[in-house]
């Protein structure tokens, strides 16, 4: 097949298929599930940031949620204070969070494993307190109100009446597709190979002439840009505030990436869908059991944690790895 010889063309082909499927699927769903699907598309960008950072270059960050917050605030402030369009605000969100990633990367390039995890966790805790520190700018605990606005008229004339959730989905998916495409191209490029070399053996990579710290910083920049875009979209659903980007959001991205498969785009896709729909799925499956609210509220967390543990112990390659092996048999 000629597409095998040209990975960029093959990637484009798959992404277009993905976009078409989501657009068609999205039109028929009820508003709740349209909203959920939109969240999947938003978080997928965040999970891809983990795929790049942890899966590809072997660095861990528990602060991706904080970088999402950076993107969220950047876009909200752009829209509210500069009156720019949502699309421009998203671009600015990417740039600002990438710059935050640059700063973080300088510190991170010197750190490994647990040190990096701890430091980024402290970052995730510290950053939201800025929202209160500069309340007049960031709106304190309440946050800033932003939204996706109204769908353009040409879209309505193409699809008919478009609900708010559906518009969230339709506005997000093209950006998700761009992120997928960018990730696929990075993974198959020379840069991706250098990142993997660093992940697999830092000293060997450096002997082969890979500049380890520059590449680590670069990974952080790219990954942070992804997280920022994801966070900006996530905030556009209504509010950009500390409660929208809690620590658990960082863990959610990480869980999604691990469960789906840390090393592949397919894994990121499966993982983001899983973490968004898992609570619904559990609710649906346990409805006949009539569980108390107390149990029901914590069941998704428990099952998520157990799945995470089972995955790292028994199947560290995640679901994508299982499917891949199955296909090859």
């Amino acid at each position, binding site marked *: 097949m000629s597409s095998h010889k040209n990975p960029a063309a093959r990637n484009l082909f798959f992404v277009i298929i993905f976009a078409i499927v989501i657009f068609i699927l999205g039109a028929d769903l009820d508003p709740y599930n349209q909203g959920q699907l939109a969240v999947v598309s938003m978080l997928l960008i965040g999970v891809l940031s983990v795929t790049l950072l942890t899966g590809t270059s072997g660095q861990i960050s528990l602060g991706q949620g904080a970088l999402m917050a950076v993107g969220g605030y950047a876009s909200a402030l752009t829209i509210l204070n500069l009156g720019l369009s949502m699309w421009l605000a998203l671009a600015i969100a990417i740039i600002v969070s990438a710059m935050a990633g640059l700063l973080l990367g300088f*510190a991170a390039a010197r750190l490994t494993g647990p040190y990096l*995890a701890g430091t980024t966790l402290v970052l995730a805790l510290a950053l939201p307190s800025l929202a209160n520190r500069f309340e007049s700018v960031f709106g304190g605990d309440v946050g800033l109100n932003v939204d996706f606005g109204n769908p353009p008229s040409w879209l309505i004339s193409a699809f008919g009446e478009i609900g708010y959730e559906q518009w969230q989905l339709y506005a997000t998916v093209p950006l998700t597709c761009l992120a997928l495409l960018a990730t696929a191209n990075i993974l198959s490029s020379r840069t991706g190979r250098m990142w993997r070399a660093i992940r697999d053996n830092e000293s060997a990579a450096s002997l082969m002439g890979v500049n380890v710290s520059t590449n680590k910083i670069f990974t952080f920049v790219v990954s942070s840009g992804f997280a920022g875009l994801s966070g900006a979209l996530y905030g556009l659903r209504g509010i950009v505030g500390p409660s929208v980007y809690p620590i658990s959001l960082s863990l959610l991205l990480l869980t999604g990436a691990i469960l789906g498969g840390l090393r592949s785009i397919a894994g990121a896709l499966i993982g983001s869908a899983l973490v968004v729909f898992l609570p619904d799925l559990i609710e649906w499956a346990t409805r006949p059991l009539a569980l108390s609210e107390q149990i029901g509220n914590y069941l998704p*967390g428990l099952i998520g944690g157990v799945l*995470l543990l089972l995955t790292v112990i028994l199947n560290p390659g995640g679901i994508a790895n299982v499917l891949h092996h199955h296909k090859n048999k």
Partner: protein
Amino acid sequence: MNTLITTLFLGTTRGAVFALVALGLVLVWRGAGIVNFAQMGQAMFSTYVASTLIIKGYGYWFAFLIALAVGAILGAIVDLAVMRPLTRRSHAGVLASDSMRATVPVIASLGILGVLQSLAGMIWAAEERGFPTPVSDVAVKPFGKTAPFTKFDLFIIVVVALTLVVTTLFFKKTGMGLAMRATALNPEVARLSGIRISRVRTLSWAISGVASSLAGLLITPSANLSPNTLDLILIVGFTAAVVGGLDSLPGSVVGGFILGLLIAVINVYVSPDDVFLALLVFLLLVLILKPGGLFASKKVRNV
């Protein structure tokens, strides 16, 4: 002047608790090369057990001892059920590189944290609970003057000091203490000496569980109990451990006290809102300027 003294006392009592948390982290880091982000989740769980016993009418000290035992057992279970199987498979597939061997246990410990917090939520609901103190927690008044500390503060200091003395004696004077130090410093030579290092590691996890449960019991009276309350303490303990060099037991204790004082000063003189920002700045400064910890001599370690 009075504020300063109060601040210093507050910093010292809090610092004592942070020292315990840091000690727990360092024990597992030295023994198994893992930073256990679930540590304060384990402590939360054992503190809930103690709280439940007290509510059911058992005495404080009985609940106290049971909580420590639960801490030890949880620590051992974490090692036996998760970390040991994980390291046994660590040469295959996704785990086959140094960077991932350092990263994956972190992820596993977060999974454990999630499981423990959800379980606690299911069993004890999300209701916030207070936690009693064994001695009075109103300021003591010697000679009719209000002193800047309470009997409970003194209790904390005494308990932590005793723990540190016992821990030091254990490591310096007992065969098991020697086995633990040898395993931490050079597992290969330890194994060749006949030390069963996987048992020693499980014991490290158990002792770490006791230390962190103790920290949980001591801090909860001033911080209310809920499934997530102790997370922030873990972050402070981690910073304290890094300040101490992450693999030095005395360093972690000193780091705990430094953090206690730093946070008390920020709380009183700047703003409670800025504690975590200050923590982040302090942590980054230490990692960049003294990556081996504040007390590292010439030997610089690659963090």
